[in-house]
């Protein structure tokens, strides 16, 4: 049933229908509305039995979820940006212990400079922690992915991070369907842990592992990701059968089969890209797109397949790896082994800057003429950068760059 809902509210309701037994909350924009809605659902009794725990930091939020999961409870939390980095040590630990915690990441830039708006810097910072990372292209997929996430996590005993673009998705209000309780119950069986703290059968979890076994334990973490490559399409198909819509996949191709220029991206920018592709096609440019839903595991084979006959790839990066380019493009290149076609990195939408159809069209058209640089910063204010570089050259104590550029931007506006 479609209802006019804020995406965060719908995510909270979907999570509640997955019957988590322990939910930990620590506020950080832009995920806060999700845990606020869950607080209400628990207090009203709509989600029961459930222990809702207000903690004092993100480290504790995920640590409480870790303890609960190891003790056999289905555990959930949500975070964003600085919060994810604050809990980084626990993020690795949950994965290393193989605990199927599900966490929403309301994707947001990472400071400094402090910025609350959307990009993928947070998710990319923790991309190799051993979690599955699924990126939602729209609000409905964000909602449905949580149901898939619990099933996938518990089947493989691996944590899953559902990445939902901050504000663009988390705070948008639109007609959304929250999967019905009966359907969720059919899709998601009760949690049967592979390891549990049980006084009737004591085990030690988290023991020291030395050179004798560390590599093998780490290998198994990789193996689980490979298993997930097989399971994600199967579970997505099963979920689609129940819900009557397609949500979740390794990736979503769009007009890709005969495309000469392919745009690869993740998250909410997918919609804008698809409209831009339509416009380009109407203008006679053979462009297509691939939106990755699974970033970890990285669907190398599926992406190589989807790239089809493309002569060039443009990766729209919502993050910056200073000194290199972008995390996504580096991964995309792995799928192009043996295919000598250019992969352009387009750094776009950092800190919430809008990615426009016009900007995307321009990039694709430039690339189609083989005139796009390897690394391009979309809509970069070159003048502002040059003025600050000049200040650096003029005096040693040139001051904080962020303040300088802001002042400059307001003066020239």
């Amino acid at each position: 049933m479609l209802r006019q809902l804020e995406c965060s509210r719908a995510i909270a309701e979907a999570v509640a229908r997955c019957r988590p037994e322990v939910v930990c909350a620590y506020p950080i924009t832009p995920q806060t509305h999700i845990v606020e809605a869950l607080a209400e659902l628990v207090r009203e009794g709509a989600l029961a039995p459930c222990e809702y725990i207000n903690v004092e930091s993100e480290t504790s939020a995920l640590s409480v979820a870790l303890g609960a999961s190891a003790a056999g409870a289905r555990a959930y939390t949500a975070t964003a940006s600085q919060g994810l980095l604050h809990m980084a040590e626990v993020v690795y630990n949950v994965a290393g212990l193989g605990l199927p915690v599900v966490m929403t990441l309301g994707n947001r830039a990472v400071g400094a400079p402090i910025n609350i708006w959307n990009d993928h810097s947070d998710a990319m910072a923790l991309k190799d922690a051993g979690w599955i990372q699924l990126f939602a292209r729209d609000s409905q997929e964000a909602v449905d992915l949580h149901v898939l996430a619990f099933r996938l996590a518990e089947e493989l005993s691996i944590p899953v991070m559902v990445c939902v673009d901050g504000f663009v998705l988390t705070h948008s209000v639109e007609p959304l369907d929250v999967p019905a309780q009966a359907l969720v119950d059919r899709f998601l069986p009760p949690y049967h842990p592979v390891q549990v703290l049980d006084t009737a059968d004591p085990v030690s979890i988290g023991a020291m592992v030395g050179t004798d076994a560390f590599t093998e334990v780490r290998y198994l973490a990789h193996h689980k990701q490979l298993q997930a490559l097989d399971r994600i399409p199967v579970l997505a198909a099963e979920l689609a059968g129940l819900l009557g819509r397609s949500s979740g996949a390794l990736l979503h191709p769009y007009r890709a089969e005969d495309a000469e220029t392919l745009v690869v991206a993740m998250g909410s920018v997918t919609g804008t890209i698809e409209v831009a592709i339509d416009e380009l096609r109407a203008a006679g440019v053979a462009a297509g797109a691939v939106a990755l839903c699974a970033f970890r595991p990285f669907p190398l084979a599926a992406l190589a397949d989807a790239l089809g006959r493309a002569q060039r790839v443009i990766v729209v990066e919502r993050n910056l790896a200073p000194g290199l380019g972008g995390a996504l493009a580096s991964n995309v290149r792995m799928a192009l082994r043996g295919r000598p076609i250019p992969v352009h990195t387009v750094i776009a939408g950092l800190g919430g800057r809008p990615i426009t159809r016009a900007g995307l069209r321009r990039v694709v058209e430039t690339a189609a003429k083989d005139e796009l640089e390897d690394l391009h910063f979309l809509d970069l204010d070159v003048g502002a950068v040059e003025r600050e570089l000049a200040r650096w050259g003029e005096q040693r104590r040139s001051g904080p760059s962020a303040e300088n550029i802001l002042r400059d931007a307001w003066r020239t506006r």
Partner: protein
Amino acid sequence: MSDQRIRFYQTGTFTVGNRLLDLGKRTVQSSTERANALTSGHRACQGCGEALGARYVLDAAMRATDRDLIAVNATGCLEVFTTPSPETAWQLPWLHSLFGNAAAVATGVAAAMRVKGKATRVIAQGGDGGTTDIGFGCLSGMFERDDDVLYVCYDNEGYMNTGVQRSSATPPTARTATTPAVGAERGNPFGTGKSLPLLAMAHRLPYVATATVADLHDLEAKVTRAMSVHGARYLHVLVPCPLGWGHPTDETIMLARLATECGLFPVFEAVGGELAASTPIRRRVPVEAYLRRQRRFAHLFDGAEPDPRLARLSALAEDNIRRFRLAAPEANP
């Protein structure tokens, strides 16, 4: 025998001869029914105070809970010496996650028990580094939420597992690898450090206690009392470390006793944030008697004149005696 009141000094030392007590008053550890939750064969150093303390704490808690107990461990000596792969010394469900999050992990385990309707109790444990420093944020959160966890700190007054560095539980003047006995003020500076038991009391916990491995009856009794109440509870156990303190391995118990008898380590209980009971000092010794036996304080005694800082340490002991009411009763009844 059973109606005879045992005076501990009857044995000539501070130890309590179990054989002098009736069965009900003997230690959990002396019973063949003990759980051996932390069993033998682990890799602790000879004379390790922490291994001894943990063994008594856990077996007492196992008895108090009818063995319905889960332990969460912070990273540190206790974690490392008990789980050399592929072995484990733990005979109860045991979970180690990280250095600084044991209290929060324990909260999660306790929440899981509650939501599943289980009566299983939860203990979290760590050293002073994992408790007073890196784990303090998580611990304070667990305290203020009054989560149903007994947190036990085995305090050896430094980061011994990483090679004896200073923690916020290291006493003034003590030499550690990061407060070396060189320069103008040798060892750990005065005016630093914190008292976790006092901080725990400030959270108005239902039960806070300190103990040492010199009085194991007292330690067991406090664990038993702690397990008789619910909510967030805190137990701070002084556990001398031969490696870090620089004392012979057979003097661990003696040093724990001297620490209390000189007044530098107060033994007390607090209920609801108020001091409820103290263990009076029976035969007070000067701080020198405690300090001289440890190499970490050797620089206080290497000059021709007594180090003036000994007077300041003495004043700290005096302050403890006043604040925690440790003065011996006037007459022995």
